[in-house]
């Protein structure tokens, strides 16, 4: 529970961060809220040689509204997303989900960018951003590029950022006249979901995200297609386990998790007005 020795740099700017990443490559890890990284370091499962603390980069903490998009700085803390007037009025789903992550202390430290870049399949936010069709903005030595959420989660705890890139912004297309449902099954309020599901239905379409049902956060195209084809919630939810590969542990077998996925997707779809 005491990390191995590491060097520490507190970054003063995004450019400095990118420079440090270029210099140190995979030996460096970014420290944002620290709520995923520090426990791994304490258990010595992660032993980075250099920690680049980006927590003071205030310019990356914001929630702003553009014409068709809600833009969130990568270092915006969960609590701020849960309570921002912008999210509450334009994407209340995001505020709702951010307000249920971990516990109050976690929400005051953890950041949306940190959560996404960790690539944890049990991340609530990742599934929600998939369902909302978000894009992620990465900045590297050659400038910025946008990555579709669908392409961002590569494999188990691995995302599409290059080793010299920093996630700077999350862009969520404003859902028009959206109805939504978010369901997660946990043993305790503060736990990661055993299984979770999110559904959004708006004028621009339907999005369904799945939590903890495979090595990466998932978007359920099978369920979405069923809804688009006119299925009701129960009919569409029957496809919820399609393409999922949940792991088995003492919190549930594969069959149990897939069953719960169907139940929660149905409930989320019903809440979303399907």
């Amino acid at each position, binding site marked *: *529970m*005491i990390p*191995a*020795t590491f060097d520490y740099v507190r970054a003063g700017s995004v450019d400095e961060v990118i420079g440090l990443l270029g210099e140190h490559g995979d030996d460096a890890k970014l420290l944002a809220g620290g709520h995923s990284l520090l*426990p791994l370091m304490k*258990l*010595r499962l992660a032993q980075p040689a250099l920690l680049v603390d980006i927590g003071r980069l205030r310019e990356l903490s914001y929630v702003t509204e553009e014409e068709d998009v809600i833009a969130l700085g990568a270092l915006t803390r969960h609590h701020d997303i849960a309570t921002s007037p912008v999210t509450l009025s334009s994407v209340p789903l995001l505020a709702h989900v951010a307000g249920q992550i971990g*516990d109050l202390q976690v929400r005051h430290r953890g950041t949306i960018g940190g959560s996404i870049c960790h690539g944890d399949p049990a991340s609530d936010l990742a599934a929600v951003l998939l369902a909302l069709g978000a894009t992620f903005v990465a900045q590297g030595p050659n400038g910025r590029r946008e990555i579709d959420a669908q392409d961002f989660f590569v494999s188990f705890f691995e995302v599409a950022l290059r080793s010299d890139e920093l996630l700077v912004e999350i862009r969520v297309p404003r859902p028009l006249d959206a109805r939504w449902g978010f369901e997660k*099954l946990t*043993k*305790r*309020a*503060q*736990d*990661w979901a*055993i299984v979770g599901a999110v559904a959004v239905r708006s004028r621009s379409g339907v999005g369904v995200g799945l939590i903890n049902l495979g090595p990466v956060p998932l978007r359920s195209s099978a369920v979405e297609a069923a809804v688009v084809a006119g299925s009701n919630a129960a009919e569409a939810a029957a496809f919820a386990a399609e393409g999922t590969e949940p792991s088995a*542990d*003492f*919190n*549930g*077998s594969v069959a*149990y998790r897939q*069953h*719960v996925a169907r*139940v*929660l997707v149905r409930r989320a779809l019903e809440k979303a007005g399907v």
Partner: protein
Amino acid sequence: MSILGNRVLRREDPKFLTVGGTYVADLALPGSVHVTFVRSSMAHARIVSVDSTYAQAMPGVLAVYTNDDLGLPKFPTIMGMTNEAMTPPMLASGTVRYVGEPIAAIVAESREIAEDALEQVVVEYEPLKVVIDPVKARTDEDLLFPDAGTNTSFSLDFGGDETLFDDCEVVVELTLANQRVAPCPLEVRSAAAHMSEDGRLEFNSSTQAPHGVRDALATFLDLEPDQVHVVTPDVGGGFGAKGAVYPEDIVVGWCAQKLGRPVRWTETRSESMLGLGHGRAQVQHVRIGGTREGAVLAYRIEVLQDTGAYAGFGAVLPFMTRMMTSGPYKIPRAECASYSVVTNSTPTTAYRGAGRPEATAAIERIMDLFAREIDMDPAELRRRNLIEKDDFPYTTPVDTVYDVGDYHRALDLALEVAGYDDLRAEQVRRRTAGDVRQLGIGLSCYVEITNGLPDGEFGAVEVRPDGKVIVRTGTSPHGQGHVTAWSMLVAEQLGVAIEDIEVIHGDTDVVPRGAGTMGSRSLQVGGAAVNQAAVDVVEKAKDLAADLFEADRDDIVLDKANGRFHVVGTPALSRSWAELAEAAAKDGTALFAEVDLASPGPTYPFGTHISVVEVDTETGKVNVLRHIAVDDAGRIISPLLAEGQVHGGIAQGVAQALLEEVVYDLDGNPLTSTLADYSFISAAELPSYETRFTETPTPVNALGAKGIGESGTIGSTPAVHNAVCDAVAHLGVRHIDMPTTPVRVWSAINDAVTGHGTAKGGR
């Protein structure tokens, strides 16, 4: 007007709520070095070699010690009852028997260096067959201690009456698990030691029993007890598991002696999950029989207790289970047999209730099944079988003598507070409608034993010339609030303000003797000793006052409203406590009294808990809607503290019913060694409790009080467990083992609905 029975605020709290407590790890110890322990990564293996060459060469590492270096004896048996071959060595000797077992101690200049050095010690293992299932252990197929020739560490079996159930119309049987749980005090184990200039061992410990730690250190380190000085600063919880002395404590003392430098050790949470003793861990087979009209005639329980890798206190827990075999019921014939077996897991020990919750869980679960079998309401079945209030003192079939109780009153009050009939009506409505969320109502009538061990306790009261009252106690509070409660007792006897009373505990130089705080004993023995000392000091003060007033001793009156003494009829001429203490000082004495109170004997708190839960039948998730607790711990001295004990107890009890379980895989690897994996409960999972006390004073001790520290845990777990099973009983589910996690509940429903029989849940 008496202060007793009033909601006096905790005197301890302002500090905890502002600057915080001072725990062992907070103590300044200049120049101290740090100990960490190399722990086994294998559940069962022969140690081929321990290579510490690299670690010893690291800058800042002072030494790496193995068991051979220490040359210390093994721990003794528990009161001569446990198998001698199975007691733990100080550090692993030749064989490791559980993951987390200490193999070597590293001493380094800093904790960080010591942690780094851990990774540089290479232990070569030769794997042995792992025994993790106690049922398998009992077969003796693979042995943890080949020299012992058995895995059984302790047993209680007086033979059985083969005719026990002969006249029963109905007999119901069940095998159930009372799962292994981790006590999880917020403060982990910690110790600090140094040699004083006069050659004494100064030792700080996070313990429930400072005198026990002193005596163990003296024994192992070959010192006289008065050469060891143990001080416990604030202790952040123990729940029974810090009642024992651990090998690490002794090694810390040994290192201080050996190196002549201050030494400290604080385990990490991950270590604590493996090193601090675990609780419960029984497999039970129960059988109950009676008439179709609901008269229970016979009951038998067989206990298989998982001792863990070595036979410590966990091995003898069934002793307490056996004492409470028949619970609060008047059952003509009842038997208990128990077998404790070693397995390749963390040793078990006392945990909040220690043997009694297991007894209650067994009989309360089978009472529900019996009620169902004869189609009787479970509350009615209990009412028909509870011991009547005129039956006390009541001797049970296993010869336990219950002191006093009014069990029906507690049941009736709980049903009334719950609105039982309305709840059943709502349950019928939901069942009829086929709701996804079904309602479950669970009852638990319990009786338990407190102050079950024979120890007496030390108490002393001294009034100083400055008017301050110094109270010394042999109990060792670690959250209970003895400073408040003992102050109330002394204020009541002396008529002084609580603010003028100082309570000292946990310092073996200042308090000469003490058994500590465990087993819900403190108030009824330790509090009673302090109370007696206060009574004695009043008598001494009256002697002094008689001299000063030149009056007859019998005419001296203590006016408790203002804490002054006068001669009867002349209150205007009076002397204060301070003046009398001053007079004593002038005589070259002090105004004080010391008491070594022999234990007045055990007492038996009782009550009824009712839990109301909602089960999501599609996911198996349980939500506790209400918890009603009616507890009777005799006379309640401090309602606020008593309620606090009940509240904390319910939280831990609900946690066992729903969430907590220490899980090992078949190779003995722990799967729950962090608080992310081990489902320690939080406020978010609990409703606001509805608590009531009935007060049936016990004749056993002068205070009329019984223990209340463990009742909440004992009463709540079966109520919640029964409620969960009740919620899905109509779907064909007979039983679900604890913890009733979502996957287990859903699997049970699914198996019942699809006709796959009773499910054990989702491994």
